[in-house]
């Protein structure tokens, strides 16, 4: 899976890292049971601070998307096939979705257009046939 971060962007690096991994899980580039690189190695490859990677991994762990083991490292523990989330999680997500949709409406995007764009993004995720060359052999 390719990970790309905007180093001098407005969004904090740990947030970007967390977002990219969530997107990779949604698109199927990462599946349940797949490993993520060790904190130090990922920080080294990206040339960023180890704490940044730690913070992103910790966020993902709190959200129940990955497991952190002393020996196994970070492993994806949930994906689209793992069944629906708990009610509390849906409520939390809805709150953030409300803000995002509010931005679209406030800026004058019509509800139809907003829905159409949401649909396109969703289709991207579900039709996302991950590039086997990028997935490697880790999808077991």
């Amino acid at each position: 899976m390719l990970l790309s971060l905007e180093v001098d962007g407005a969004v904090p690096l740990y947030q970007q890292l967390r977002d990219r991994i969530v997107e990779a899980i949604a698109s199927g580039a990462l599946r349940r049971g797949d490993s993520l690189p060790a904190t130090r190695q990922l920080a080294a490859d990206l040339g960023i601070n180890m704490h940044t990677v730690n913070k992103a991994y910790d966020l993902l762990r709190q959200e129940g998307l990955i497991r952190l083991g002393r020996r196994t490292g970070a492993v994806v523990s949930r994906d689209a096939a793992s069944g629906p989330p708990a009610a509390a999680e849906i409520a939390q997500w809805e709150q953030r979705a409300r803000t995002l949709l509010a931005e679209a409406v406030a800026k004058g995007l019509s509800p139809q257009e907003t829905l159409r764009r949401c649909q396109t993004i969703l289709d991207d995720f579900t039709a996302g046939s991950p590039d086997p060359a990028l997935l490697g052999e880790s999808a077991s």
Partner: protein
Amino acid sequence: MTVFPTLFPILLIGLIAWMMPALVPRSVPFGVRIPGARAQEPVIAQQRRLYRYGVAAISLVVASVVLATGSRPALGGLGVAAELAGAVALFQVARRRIMAVKQHEHWFGGLRQVVVTDTSLRTDPEPYPWRWAVPSIVLTAATVVIGILRYPHLPARLAIHFDAASQADRYAPVSLVWAFGPVVAQVLGTALFAGLAALVLRSKAQLDAEDPQTAAVRHRRFVSSGARALLLLATCLSVTSLLTSLTAWQIVNLARPARALFPVIPLLGVVVLVAVLVRVGQNGSRLRIRASRGSGSARRTSAVNRDDDRYWRLGLLYFNRDDPSLLVPHRFWLGWTLNLARPAAWAIIAATLGAPLITALIR
């Protein structure tokens, strides 16, 4: 013929310095990070030309001075130092000129700067090439075993120096240090190279953000060829160590011309290592990778590599406190360098410089 050993390194270094601009990725000419679209800027071609004229001129001058004054080894060393200093100075001039134009014209203005990695490089890493490590390990083990078997039968003194007629003219009393010193060095050397190969395989993947998919393939080929070439060099060193020890322990008695070949074997290993890296290019930049592997202009991203010049002091030395990597790919040359912001880097430098010093003091 006598001039050749002095002249050879001067010509070799001249050639390598001359080739340097062609060996590094196009996104870092003379250690300056540029957006890919700027690779054809006239200032780069112009500085490359000036640098090459300069390197050729310095090498010719140094070589002719050495030729004219006969070949005293001390002069050869001085010549090499002068040549290297000249190449570095020319590099700095080219770097400064390109940086000046880059800043003046805001080459990175308005571009999305990113860092990219491919997580599969780590979750599905290149395997350690054990097959390439086995010969040096076996040779080293053989040296140790032969040494242990031979030690009780060694004479009270060993020849350590031979005159022109291959007759021993200096002796040292046999002690553990004399008999096994070189063996310990061989064991440490083998371990060092085996470890280096592992470090190289895990070294920082500096992927080109403008074509990360191809860059990941390049990185894989770069580190796996580098690790193999290092292990081959370790094998060459082990062969020489074994032969040297066998001679010292008087198990084989080789004539002087044969002994003179001992140091040539590791030199061949070095030549192979350089040849492999030249072939592959820094970060695999010289490999031709078929478009069918998922590359090509169609899949190029809109982002550019982050301008990371600030972490490269003088364009040569890497210093980045945030980056936990110890070994990073060189930016101006082939192979790897140390992240000087890591304490471990200074430990390695101290060990490298200190080991010969301590050895000399013990002797």
